[in-house]
């Protein structure tokens, strides 16, 4: 049994996610500009991938760049061998990171229009943080931070130096949490909440897993349910704003 389609209708990252989440055993052939990649899915993960002479994770990172082409999915076909052991979310995260790096390198070419668009996005992000603050009970502060530790937007009143240190330390904490949860075999982290004497501190990853929101709320006046709901809503909004 199989399915054919076009990458314009369904991106490779989506194909990977759906087949892994459905825990299919299947073979996926993808054609792009005369090249053919073959992926094998087994028990909720990608276990093998080939592209010409290449094999393994690098094939995934290469084909994630393909925006056009066709695919042919055949279920029930087992992989001939195992060349990939990383989890599918890990592969997609690493693939997204590599794509971001490549785009960032390309964007370093000076462009007045790029600078203007970037400034406009930053203003929007700060505005969105302010808007979010109005919806959070017991609000203290919020920041939007990249997984590289750099703060994109912040509502913290401390000095720039303190903000940077805070962003870097929270990133380290989130990465430690990610690594621990991965070792535990508990899947991808959605959020992390620290409860202290005086406050709740919530970190929530945006859908692309490249950025995360930090929200601090007063322990006495804050509401955990409200915190989690608002950060969930705004993480989607921030994600959309940054791709525009």
């Amino acid at each position, binding site marked *: 049994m199989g399915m054919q389609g076009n990458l314009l209708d369904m991106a490779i990252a989506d194909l990977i996610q759906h087949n892994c989440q459905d825990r299919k055993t299947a073979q996926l052939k993808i054609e792009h500009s005369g090249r053919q990649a073959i992926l094998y899915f087994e028990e909720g993960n990608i276990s093998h991938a080939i592209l010409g002479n290449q094999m393994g994770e690098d094939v995934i990172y290469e084909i994630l760049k393909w925006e056009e082409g066709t695919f042919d999915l055949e279920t029930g076909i087992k992989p001939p061998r195992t060349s990939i052991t990383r989890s599918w979310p890990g592969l997609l995260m690493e693939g997204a990171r590599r794509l971001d790096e490549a785009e960032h390198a390309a964007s370093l070419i000076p462009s007045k229009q790029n600078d203007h668009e970037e400034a406009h996005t930053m203003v929007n992000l700060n505005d969105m943080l302010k808007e979010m603050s109005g919806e959070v009970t017991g609000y203290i502060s919020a920041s939007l931070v990249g997984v590289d530790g750099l703060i994109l937007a912040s509502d913290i009143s401390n000095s720039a130096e303190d903000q940077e240190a805070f962003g870097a330390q*929270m990133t380290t904490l989130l990465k430690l949490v990610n690594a621990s949860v991965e070792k535990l075999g508990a899947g991808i*982290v959605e959020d992390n909440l620290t409860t202290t004497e005086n406050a709740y*501190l919530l970190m929530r990853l945006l859908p692309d897993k490249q950025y995360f929101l930090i929200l601090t709320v007063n322990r006495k006046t804050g509401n955990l349910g409200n915190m989690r709901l608002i950060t969930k809503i705004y993480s989607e909004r921030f994600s959309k704003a940054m791709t525009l």
Partner: protein
Amino acid sequence: MNKLDQLILKFGSELGADFISTDVVGMEDGLSISGSSIDPNFNTLDASARFSKVMELAARVCSKVGMGKVEDNLTTSEKAYIIARFIGDGSYYWVVAVTRNATLGSVRMLMNEYAVQLASILPH
């Protein structure tokens, strides 16, 4: 079976079907001194040491920004809730993993109850 192991087992059984695993870990060495797990896919021993670093770093960061002493840390992942909290004077921490079906409020309430008992029998 010692008192600590008995208490840990009792805690796990009170949680019922939502229980996945639990460990009591020394903060100094990151080693588990008692634990229980019903899911063989959960690699708790390895993760215990890492979570001790999580608690250590969380405590340091929160202290630096004036948020006070850390009480607990809750991670939500695809498959589980993982709750870690310091026990007694903070020389141990206790980590509990439950399924996403668990009612968090009930789990935390039960942990509060058992944390007092754990603190009384752990060596200091």
